[in-house]
């Protein structure tokens, strides 16, 4: 394969018959741009959702009169639970110290600490919160009053409503984001393929003539593939440059605002660039090569 010749052929087409190439370029650029904006957003959104989820935990409040053995046994039991990632002990003093505002003042006035000690159990997977709670409860014979597996337990709290709401919202966000991301990626591939198809269609007579003077299919196809690589690379590059400018002039100045939630989890710009460029070039080149097959068959 004569690479230099095919490349010069591709360049010739780009210069003489540029309308279809420009259309393909625009499509690649625009879809890359959308993906380039959307991938970090998906990233931030799912990152934020995961962040919120990771804060879910089960609070096991202890009776003030629980014995040390009972507390130690409970801790062992919790730690042994395969759904539990880690267990932290919060003493009565710690609980009081974490209170703020008028309540704090109030307890000072009281002179005694009304808050109970507790274990805070972090689940491996936020969805397992309710299982951990269930593992600590037993239902008494008459099936009415909830009792706990350890006499040390005064109450088990996982803020049921809130947990469910958080799981639902974050789940919804992740579902929507992934759905949209998949939709956008498929859409981009389809749109780029579609434009390439049309741009080759616009040159079908030329392809016909080439075949009539004895060009093999690959001889016709290579320049199209190389042109596809050029167009894809150019479209991808312009999109990436626009993203970079956008990032530096709009996002970075206000990034404090965004840093509050999940900025550090955003995909690395270099990686993003690489992914986008490879995708743009790949789809564009493959699209050119594959689409041509239809016109080479007849």
């Amino acid at each position, binding site marked *: 394969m004569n690479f230099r010749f095919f490349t010069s052929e591709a360049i010739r087409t780009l210069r003489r*018959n540029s309308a279809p190439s420009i259309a393909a370029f625009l499509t690649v650029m625009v879809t890359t741009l959308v993906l380039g904006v959307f991938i970090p957003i998906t990233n931030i959104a799912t990152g934020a959702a995961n962040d919120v989820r990771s804060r879910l935990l089960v609070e096991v409040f202890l009776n003030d009169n629980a014995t040390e053995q009972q507390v130690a046994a409970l801790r062992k039991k919790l730690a042994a639970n395969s759904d539990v990632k880690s267990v932290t002990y919060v003493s009565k003093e710690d609980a009081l110290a974490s209170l703020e505002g008028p309540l704090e003042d109030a307890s000072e006035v009281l002179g005694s600490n009304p808050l109970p000690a507790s274990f805070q159990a972090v689940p491996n997977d936020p969805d397992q919160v309710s299982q951990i709670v269930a593992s600590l409860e037993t239902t008494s014979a008459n099936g009415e009053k909830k009792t706990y597996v350890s006499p040390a337990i005064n109450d088990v709290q996982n803020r049921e409503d809130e947990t469910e709401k958080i799981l639902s919202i974050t789940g919804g966000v992740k579902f929507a984001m992934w759905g949209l991301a998949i939709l956008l990626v498929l859409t981009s591939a389809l749109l780029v393929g579609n434009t390439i198809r049309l741009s080759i269609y616009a040159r079908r007579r030329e392809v016909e003539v*080439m075949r009539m003077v004895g060009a093999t299919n690959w001889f016709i196809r290579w320049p199209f593939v190389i042109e596809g690589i050029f167009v894809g690379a150019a479209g991808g590059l312009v999109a990436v440059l626009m993203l970079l400018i956008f990032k530096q002039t709009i996002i970075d100045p206000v990034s404090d605002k965004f840093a509050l939630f999940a900025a550090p989890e955003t995909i690395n710009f270099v990686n993003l660039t690489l992914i986008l460029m490879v995708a743009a070039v790949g789809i564009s080149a493959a699209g050119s090569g594959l689409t041509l097959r239809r016109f080479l068959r007849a």
Partner: protein
Amino acid sequence: MGSPVVEFDHVTKIYDDGTVGLENATTAIRQGEFVFLVGPTGCGKSTFIRLLMKEFEATEGTLMIAGRDITKLSRDRIPFLRRNIGAVFQDFKLLPNRTVYDNVAYSLLVTGASRAEIRQKVPHSLRLVGLSTKLHNYPDQLSGGEQQRVSIARAFVNHPPLMICDEPTGNLDPETSLGIMQLIYRINRTGTTVLVATHDKGMVDRMKRRVIELKDGHLVRDERAAGYTSEFNAYAADLDPTNEGELRAS
């Protein structure tokens, strides 16, 4: 006379809409022959030629080129068949986004010719049809006759063993037509088998070569003219193939 280069054996071509393009044609063209294909408009001349180029399949019959049945040729081999046939198309079939030079060069490029070979053969070939000054024009910057001559230059640039011309002088004035016919005749004398479909009755009468006549898709006449190798040879006598002159300066 050499071995048969083209053999039609009961070949029929019926188009999708039922039109009969060619019906039950049987004939053979031997190596080195110069054959005219004549007949009224719509009689099947282009169909005959397009079958040879395998532009479409024959409906029935076998078609051999250089002893090979091309109706059984696999799709991958078609380009190699076409490279061995220099074709002048009735509608020229030039590449619109290439200059005159590049259009002719493309025929060599597909065969993997070297740059040196291209640089030597393309200008030579264009000079022979009288287009030395238009090398860098695009087809839409040429007159009808100029486009036709580019198509002719492309057909013989890689010295194919078989040359097929569909109406090669339809857009040319009588003088240029004669020059082109002399050129084709000279190419024929170097051993190339030539088939020319034409309406130029004067030319056919004058050249006194074999004539295949078609009518409504049927082969109605196939004869060698009486005064074979007489008059036209006199025209061309002083034109030695090794000493090819230019057709026209511009």
